[in-house]
């Protein structure tokens, strides 16, 4: 059975489940209603620096509800990238480019359900993406259980700088389902599942693979089918603090298996400060056709370090300050967040000296949020 057929059957089963849940929701006697997300405005400056790549830029988001029925969200994100990464410096010369991303979403609350329709567009000089998603969040069981279903379809137009004749496409489908359950007055648990299907050009036009020491253009399969499942628990610890822990398992038909474990702690300090900290451990096994230096001729070969065997340890912290508050009117907060990444590759080498490559990166986010 083709991947898309299988996913179609999966979706049909999910649709009948939503239908059942909706039907039951409409049969509810109590006049309940899901709440729209609160009005919000965010402005952020983000910086990524590591492994020879720096990317920074502003981002803004504005959300406003209209007539208490519909909420509109608009967002803009800019990435100014200066790329001198290990891949770029060893095969080409560093370059700069900009990526613009726009997003528009509509939230609609009907009875116990919140429907969200979102569209997004991202463009770089040689890569354009358009996406559309639909998410449904349904409160059931007296608000104790929240079931969510989502679908995203994205299309990419792939180009190549310096080669106007090159053009290809990629299409992506994502199906998600999640359940969040209130366990006690202090603990929540959730499970999320996602199935992703990609087809088309899934490689990188500039990247080269190595076969018998020689550089060859990479050959990546034109389909990919992935699954991920995540378990998460959040709990209030009683001292104006909370902790969360999560585990995600990812597997796909390129033979990549990845585990993610994260634990975090948040605490209110005084009357105006909120501090968060987390540690995240990520490990993945290489794709079937990945090779740092292939010693056999295979149909597919790639030296993309994103598909190699590696570990990533991230430590992060965030501080939020309640700047101005007018209850019932608005609430302005200032935030600073830092993440430190430490990636160690097990089968990707720095071809300049043959040693196993590792990179350290830092992420900084400075932003203001206002609810009004």
């Amino acid at each position, binding site marked *: 059975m083709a991947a898309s057929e299988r996913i179609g059957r999966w979706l049909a089963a999910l649709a009948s489940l939503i239908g059942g849940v909706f039907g039951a929701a409409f049969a509810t006697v109590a006049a309940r209603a899901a709440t729209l997300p609160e009005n919000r405005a965010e402005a952020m400056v983000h910086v990524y620096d590591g492994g020879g790549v720096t990317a920074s830029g502003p981002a803004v988001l504005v959300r406003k509800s209209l007539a208490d029925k519909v909420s509109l969200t608009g967002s803009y994100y800019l990435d100014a990238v200066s790329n001198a990464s290990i891949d770029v410096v060893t095969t080409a010369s560093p370059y700069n480019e900009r990526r613009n991303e726009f997003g528009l979403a509509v939230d609609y609350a009907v009875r116990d359900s919140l429907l969200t329709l979102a569209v997004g567009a991202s463009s770089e000089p040689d890569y354009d993406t358009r996406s559309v998603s639909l998410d449904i969040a349904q409160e059931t069981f007296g*608000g104790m259980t929240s079931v969510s279903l989502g679908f995203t379809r994205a299309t990419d137009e792939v180009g190549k700088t310096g080669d106007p004749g090159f053009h290809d496409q990629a299409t992506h489908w994502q199906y998600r389902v999640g359940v969040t359950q209130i366990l006690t007055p202090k603990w929540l648990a959730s499970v999320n599942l996602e199935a992703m299907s990609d087809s088309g050009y899934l490689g990188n036009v500039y990247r080269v693979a190595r076969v018998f020491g020689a550089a060859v253009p990479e050959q990546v399969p034109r389909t990919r089918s992935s699954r991920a499942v995540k378990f998460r628990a959040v709990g209030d610890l009683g001292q104006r603090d909370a902790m969360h822990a999560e585990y995600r398992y990812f597997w796909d038909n390129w033979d990549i298996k990845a585990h993610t474990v994260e634990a975090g702690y948040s605490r209110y300090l005084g009357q105006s400060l909120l501090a968060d900290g987390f540690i995240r451990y990520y490990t993945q096994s290489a794709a079937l056709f990945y090779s740092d230096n292939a010693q056999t001729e295979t149909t597919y070969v790639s030296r993309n370090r994103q598909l190699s065997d590696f570990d990533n340890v991230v430590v992060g912290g965030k501080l939020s300050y309640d700047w101005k508050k007018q209850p019932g009117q608005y609430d302005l907060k200032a935030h600073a967040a830092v993440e430190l990444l430490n990636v160690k590759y097990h089968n990707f080498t720095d071809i300049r000296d043959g040693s196993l490559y590792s990179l350290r990166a830092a992420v900084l986010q400075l932003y203001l949020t206002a609810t009004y």
Partner: protein
Amino acid sequence: MNTPVAASPLPLEGAPPADRRSRIRGGRLVIAWLVATMLSACAAPEPWVKPYERERLADPIMRLNRDALSAKHSEHVRDISEAARGATGVQGGGCGCK
């Protein structure tokens, strides 16, 4: 020669004997009763955390994605460094406020 087979109160050849049939009937009744009890038990659980007990759960520190842009950016950094994607989830089960 064909012997007409008349409807008979006696058990047909191959059918289980009378006492075993009544036991099967009894067993099926028990199973039906158990299933009915389980289904009604299934319908019975009341939400055990009442809306007025959800104060701690409504606190922003219990939320998965408190700040949309920050979460989106962190997720983007992970997407371009790692092969694994998805199941990041959207959290529900809030304050029970309507």
